């Protein structure tokens, strides 16, 4: 009898971690996918994953149409659960892409819009970034100008103690020069300074160290 009760209790605990839904509320995910030239990407398999702290479900999937558009409608996940969109182009020339941990607060009128550029793997290289501090300044922001490839987006808030976390790698299109603009804060003078450096990109992956 005790074993039965224990088993029932374990089953209750196990099932309570499942992702639960409220089908009386339905969210729409509108995706529009293009390549770097703005051409629509058809037949990109797209799946929506609903998650809570313990579990996740693939709750919907579909493929983009000839215009690169796709609408997926899914039930609301309960208890502040989040959604992730995974794009997997059928053509293996293209890189997979994800938009992760989308909170329900980002839905407007029950809709989340995801217009994304998907990159051909052969057209991009990986730019590895290192950051070397002199100790006199702190890095407050980094941005790029140029043909930069799409990256996964993660809406989960990382625990950084309020410090800026710069990107450590980006996809950049080959044979170009990209501009890296960064902002620093100098402790001694309490001033903010914005500077730009040029990084030539050839046809191979490269590593760049930003000294500040």
């Amino acid at each position: 009898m005790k074993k039965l009760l224990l088993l029932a209790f374990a089953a209750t605990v196990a099932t309570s971690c499942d992702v639960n839904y409220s089908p009386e509320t339905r969210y729409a995910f509108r995706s529009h996918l293009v390549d770097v030239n703005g051409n629509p990407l058809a037949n990109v398999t797209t799946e929506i994953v609903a998650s809570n702290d313990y579990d996740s479900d693939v709750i919907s999937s579909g493929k983009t149409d000839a215009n690169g558009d796709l609408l997926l409608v899914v039930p609301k996940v309960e208890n502040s659960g989040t959604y992730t969109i995974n794009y997997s182009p059928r053509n293996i020339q293209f890189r997979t892409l994800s938009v992760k941990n989308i909170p329900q607060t980002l839905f407007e009128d029950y809709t989340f819009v995801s217009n994304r550029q998907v990159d051909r793997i052969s057209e991009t290289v990986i730019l590895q970034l290192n950051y070397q501090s002199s100790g006199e300044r702190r890095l407050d922001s980094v941005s790029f100008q140029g043909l930069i490839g799409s990256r996964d987006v993660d809406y989960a808030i990382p625990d950084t103690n309020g410090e800026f976390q710069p990107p450590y790698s980006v996809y950049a299109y080959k044979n170009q020069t990209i501009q890296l603009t960064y902002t620093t804060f100098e402790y001694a003078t309490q001033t903010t300074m914005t500077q730009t450096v040029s990084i030539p990109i050839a046809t191979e992956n490269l590593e760049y160290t930003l000294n500040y």
Partner: protein
Amino acid sequence: MKKYILFLLLGVGAFAQQQRDSVGNGLKWNRKVRLEYVFPVQFGDNSHAKSQKAIGGLAFSYDLLSYRKFHFGLGIQRLIFDVTDGAAMGALSNTNDTNLYSYLGYEFPINDRLTLRPEIGGGYSRVDRDIVSYAEAQDGYNLRAGLRAELRRRKAISFNAGLFFNYNRFEINTVPEYVDYFSQAQSLQISAGINIKLDHKKRKHKKR
């Protein structure tokens, strides 16, 4: 709240089962049950018609009261649908509609064996989905109207066939252009089944 309504309706049914005699002024307790196979032909621009395919289901109804040729009863039906459009419905293999309703019918005897019976009714509806972890269902209501033909084969048993228009309205919060798509369903329900008059022998015995 909805569970309490269900218990209340079942309670009324159980109470009626214990009654055999007239309750006065021509009002009688009935003990006639009906079991049917139901196939809904869904139509309209809604998720039931466009994103799902009906498999069919079972209905159980119970004539509780009669007054002259009027009959009042309760019914429950459960219908199963295959999901054909995962983009609109989510990663489901099927959905289940449950309609719990009360109805009022009027009997037109055609001859000794055949009776036509127009009916109207309505009640509570819900849609359950088959994702294992689903905790909630989509609630709503149903309205129904149609005609049933009953063919008596034995004194206690008769067969029936019916054609009903069924309208469902479900609660939904979603993008404005999809509110109607997910909130309503219309169908023509084709049904066939058997009726059993439970108190037939007892009444016959009483008359002697």
